[in-house]
């Protein structure tokens, strides 16, 4: 009788431990995750997206504006920036920590949706752009060449969507600590009201 009581007591303690310990571990992980999330990726910067420069290439205006609009949407989705501003936005001059995104088309291969549908292997629309994230002073923080194409299904304009998504991904993966350091170095020293630093 005594041994059975002891056994049941032992089982109860084991069960409680089994339930409580993983929960505690889980909550710890969540806490760590949330704290790292809040400190590491808290949006502090504002980015202003510039219009796409087609360079010397004969890129349709619809493509240029599609890249621009898709970029705005994809950068908003990353939640990496406090505000994503458009080119020409007058409010940008008032923002203290502003980054400027410049996009220049390097290579463009016009494709054909019909050719893609008929042959599968040819007719891809390909875009290659150079994307630069700069400070207001012109210091380059991110400088990458990004591709975007549509190979099998979808209209030609889909290449612009894929390209914008890849640019946003590249910027998201860029080390924002470098951005912070670069920006701090680039900032002029702030002065108090009496002129002291």
């Amino acid at each position, binding site marked *: 009788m005594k041994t059975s009581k002891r056994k049941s007591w032992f089982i109860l303690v084991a069960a409680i431990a089994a339930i409580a310990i993983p929960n505690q571990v889980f909550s710890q992980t969540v806490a760590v995750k949330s704290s790292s999330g809040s400190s590491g990726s808290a949006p502090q910067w504002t980015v202003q997206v510039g*219009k796409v420069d087609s360079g010397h290439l*004969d*890129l*349709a*205006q*619809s*493509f*240029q*504006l*599609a890249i*621009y*609009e*898709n970029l705005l949407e994809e950068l908003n989705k990353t939640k990496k920036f406090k505000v994503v*501003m*458009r*080119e*020409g*936005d*007058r*409010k940008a001059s008032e923002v203290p920590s502003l980054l400027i995104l410049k996009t220049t088309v390097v290579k463009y291969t*016009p*494709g*054909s*949706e*019909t*050719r893609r*549908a*008929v*042959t*599968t292997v040819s007719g891809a629309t390909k875009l290659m752009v150079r994307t630069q994230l700069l400070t207001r002073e012109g210091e380059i923080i991110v400088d990458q060449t990004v591709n975007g194409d549509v190979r099998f*299904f979808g*209209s*030609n*304009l889909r290449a612009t969507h894929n390209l914008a998504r890849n640019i946003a991904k590249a910027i998201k993966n860029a080390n924002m600590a470098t951005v912070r350091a670069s920006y701090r170095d680039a900032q002029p020293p702030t002065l108090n009201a009496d002129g002291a630093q």
Partner: protein
Amino acid sequence: MNRLFALRNHQSGSFTGHALISLWALSLCCSTGAFAQKTPPSVNATAPFSVRVTHLLGWPNTKTNCNGTLSIQDNLLQFRQKGRPGAQISIASVQNLFLGEESKQIAGLPMTLGKAAAPYGGGRVVSLFAHKKYETLTLEYVDSDGGVHGVIFQLSKGQGEMLKDELVARGVPWSVSPDSGEDQPTRQSTAEVTRENK
């Protein structure tokens, strides 16, 4: 002899008449040509205008790839989806207008899946014929803060030109854009020319 003289006189009178008529006809032709050159496109700049379009991207608070009606009324451009009034922009804020052409496969995803499922590459043969040419109208406008926006609409062939005429009649500047679609003749872009001139 007298008779012959009279006949000659009569002939010279007729020649003068002919010359006068020819001169009058010529002047009439020239004046018509000049009039035709001066006449602006026959678009009533105040009458409301609407056209069925597919919104591809950029219009505020509107889903992409949705059908609707783009209407022009009282200096406002409005996109209506299923008759419901949507967002509207002022025509005065439109800075640029580009017209292009694109060839697309028809019937979307269901057709694509059907073609993929067709045996012996039958879907590829269908693809050869299952495409249609559309016109794309690209608008560049600025919002109240000065931010640049881009909107792209897809229209049936011929309607883009009509819409362009309506907008141009209301003072929107327009440029011919090199087409993004396939099998298109290359057209000179005035936008690029202006950029080069700057």
